[in-house]
């Protein structure tokens, strides 16, 4: 069988396994003799695997290795930031968010600020972030399938979109948590297993440092901020701000916290997530480093993102190499599928609840929402020129950090936040970050400082959004929600504490 054949087989296997594990999770049915199902709330470990499965997208699986291969150690800030985002989430947001009882971000906005207006704006932003995040997933799928099987670049995107849509439309009864947890371990295995072989070969070859083979003299691969390109320091800080603060604003991450039984479990889950992501993100940079030694032509051709897919076949001759390449391809598709499914469900939920809910019934509205949630970004992916998976996802993070991070942090920790302040802050942050994202995606960004500011907007849009939110809130003290103090008590008191939490605002 050819290499392409193995890859196709692996992709098919991933799709089938995804469906099968879902069916297995659903088998948790019991008769009275041995049930007590209710005590089986989702354990933090399982939930953390599921979050990891949903969170590790194509940007992590393919993009990081590609960036490290092309631009060197400076790019390690991406995986560091994507992990550290959960540290910020753990410290500032996880437990209070769970205690708020919110399922989506608009739910949180409504219950904290007691305003329908904030809810509607949050819903719009969730949809925008979801689309911005889905688009590169579809693009990445197209690139991956094209690289391994030689099909057209559009086919992979359409394939993933179709599978996700079928999955979401007809899979409402399956156990999502098991599927997503399985995807995390699949992705980890798909990177780790080939790496064991490749590192052995590398050691056998004398363990040459990747930094020692410069394609150009005076290469700055190993030393950060030394390379070509302007304003590297600003760009790096901006990436740090976006990734550290953007995680909490991702719709598919937030909905998973609802599964935790209480605030303490939410914290424990986040801690597990940190460990799992830390483990996973050790691997892609190694691919990048090895790629520099064994596949340097990819840098010249610009196909750096396919290094994870091609490297095993290049380093290991014969069937074994083909099989391992097929394994990484399968992992990549697991990444596309799980992230896209999670995002589609989250976005479709918001669309059906806040846009279609009144006109269509519950399930019908959700299905219509899912179609819209998938088709729009697929269309964008087919139309837009590839920006680079990691960069596009980075923009989604910047957008989330400029809108939902201020809302969540101030909403949880500052009782004087008002609905007017929240709306103004999200409009300013979202408007600036969104404008910058559009300018970058359309390739209209100018050169020099303005170009750097637009390419990585988070470093100035996030503080701007915070300032606006605080300023307008202070200017409108009469609009502080009527039950703000009571809501704060609920958010911050552990569930175990016996306390009169009062009647809730309606």
């Amino acid at each position, binding site marked *: 069988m050819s290499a392409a054949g193995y890859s196709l087989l692996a992709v098919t296997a991933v799709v089938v396994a995804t469906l099968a594990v879902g069916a297995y999770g*659903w088998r*948790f*049915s*019991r*008769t*009275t003799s041995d*049930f*007590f*199902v*209710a*005590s*089986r*709330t*989702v354990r933090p470990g399982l939930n953390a695997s599921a979050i990891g499965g949903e969170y590790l997208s194509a940007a992590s699986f393919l993009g990081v290795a590609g960036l490290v291969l092309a631009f060197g150690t400076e790019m390690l800030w991406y995986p560091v930031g994507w992990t550290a985002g959960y540290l910020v989430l753990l410290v500032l947001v996880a437990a209070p968010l769970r205690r708020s*009882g*919110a*399922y*989506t971000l608009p*739910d949180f906005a*409504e*219950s904290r600020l*007691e305003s329908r207006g904030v809810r509607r704006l949050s819903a719009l932003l969730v949809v925008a972030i979801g689309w911005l995040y889905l688009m590169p997933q579809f693009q990445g799928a197209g690139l991956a399938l094209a690289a391994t099987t030689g099909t057209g670049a559009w086919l992979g995107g359409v394939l993933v979109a179709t599978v996700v849509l079928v999955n979401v439309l007809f899979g*409402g*009864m399956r*156990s*999502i*948590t098991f599927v997503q947890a399985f995807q995390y371990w699949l992705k980890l295995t798909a990177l780790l297993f080939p790496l064991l072989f490749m590192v052995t070969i590398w050691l056998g070859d004398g363990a040459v440092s990747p930094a020692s083979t410069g394609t150009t003299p005076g290469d700055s691969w190993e030393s950060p901020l030394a390379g070509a390109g302007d304003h590297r320091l600003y760009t790096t800080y901006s990436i740090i701000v976006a990734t550290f603060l953007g995680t909490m604003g991702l719709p598919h991450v937030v909905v998973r916290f*609802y*599964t*935790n*039984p209480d605030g303490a479990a939410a914290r424990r889950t986040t801690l597990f997530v940190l460990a799992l992501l830390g483990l996973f993100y050790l691997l892609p940079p190694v691919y990048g480093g090895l790629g520099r030694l064994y596949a340097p032509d990819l840098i010249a051709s610009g196909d750096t993102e396919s290094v994870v897919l091609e490297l095993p076949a290049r380093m290991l001759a014969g069937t074994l190499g083909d099989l391992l390449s097929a394994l990484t391809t399968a992992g990549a598709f697991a990444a596309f599928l799980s992230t896209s499914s999670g995002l589609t*469900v989250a976005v*479709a*939920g918001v669309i*059906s*609840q806040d846009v279609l809910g009144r006109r269509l019934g*519950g*399930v019908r509205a*959700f299905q219509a929402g899912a179609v819209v949630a998938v088709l729009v970004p697929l269309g964008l992916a087919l139309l837009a020129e590839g920006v680079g998976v990691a960069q596009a996802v980075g923009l989604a993070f910047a957008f989330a950090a400029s809108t939902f991070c201020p809302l969540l942090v101030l909403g949880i920790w500052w009782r004087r936040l008002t609905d007017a302040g929240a709306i103004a802050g999200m409009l300013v942050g979202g408007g600036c970050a969104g404008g910058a994202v559009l300018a970058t995606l359309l390739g209209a960004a100018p050169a020099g400082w303005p170009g750097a500011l637009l390419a990585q907007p988070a470093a100035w849009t996030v503080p701007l959004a915070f300032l606006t939110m605080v300023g307008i809130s202070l200017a409108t003290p009469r609009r502080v929600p009527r039950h703000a103090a009571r809501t704060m008590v*609920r958010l911050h008191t552990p569930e175990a504490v016996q306390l009169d939490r009062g009647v*809730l*605002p*309606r």
Partner: protein
Amino acid sequence: MLRGALRWLRPGHLGTEAEQATFRTLHSASLTAPELREGLTSGSAGRAIRHLRDLLGVPAVALTDTVTTLAWDGRFGHHEQDAAALAAVVVESGGTVVLDRRSFACSDPGCGLRQVVISPLVVEDRVVGTLQAFTSSASAALVRAVTEVARWVSGNLELAELDASRTRLMEAEVRALRAQISPHFIYNSLTAIASFVRTDPVRARELLLEFADFTRYSFSKHGEYTTLAEELRSIERYLVLEKARFGDRLQVTLRVAQEVLPVAVPFLCLQPLVENAVRHGLERKPGTGTVTIIAADQAGECLISVEDDGIGEDPDKVRRALAGDVSVDSVGLGNVDARLRTAFGDDYGLVVETAPGAGTKVIVRVPKFAPGVRP
């Protein structure tokens, strides 16, 4: 269309002066109504009083209950302290009175409040407070206006009372539902347990503990909402006890998606449905009966269904039970339906699929988040 545009251009298209005055009055009234619907508290009075002063067009207005001042709006705030004493006069007399400067002593020569019109606020023939309009000189028209506004405020307060009593009724029904853990069930459970005492003392002990836990949950002083996990745990205990009684005749299948266990549901909203299913699925029918309880995860919602393969029910009877007819033999179906609607809105009522001889399936939809609903 052109004629329409011309009509808009013609002067006075927004109504005559008198009509506009009426509109303004109605607007002020419509702003006040929702505040007053919360009942007479210092919070609601404080928000409503500005609009009341707009309505009356006097320098100062006060709202009191029978003993204290709840809110004051307008100039010459030093008279706010007098309002409580003035209220006492009206609470005694029960009708509108006009009092002058002598009843609220003032040392400020520049003070423009010389007379006060006080009208009682009456709810169900009981004076609950007063509306006081302070002015320089009370005309007959003002007396009339204050009386009418006070009557209108009273009407809104009566509506508030109605809301409150509706809530109280719902709470009473929950309490009744708790008490409805039927004597039959208690008797049957204890008999079943007794039958094990000699043959299988260990099992008898376990069952007794289940029984204790079950009753503790059902009678517990609990808030309005609980989690689906808690509710299912109680149902599991209930089913263990019923299985002790029916043995293999009762088959139970539970399929629960773990993701929906933290969802908030009204307290004791599933228990009556399961009890109905066991009764209809088994009691009036030979052979085994199966009860299937499913809780599925559907994005922002949780779908719960309770199904039995029993004798079924006449759809008309179910419709009557849902409409609140208590003579129908279905434990708390109407109550559960009403509480789900109050908690989550009218889109979230019970759906019952049944026909004689075809079993019964009750479907509950619960949103994962609804404002004000938390365990």
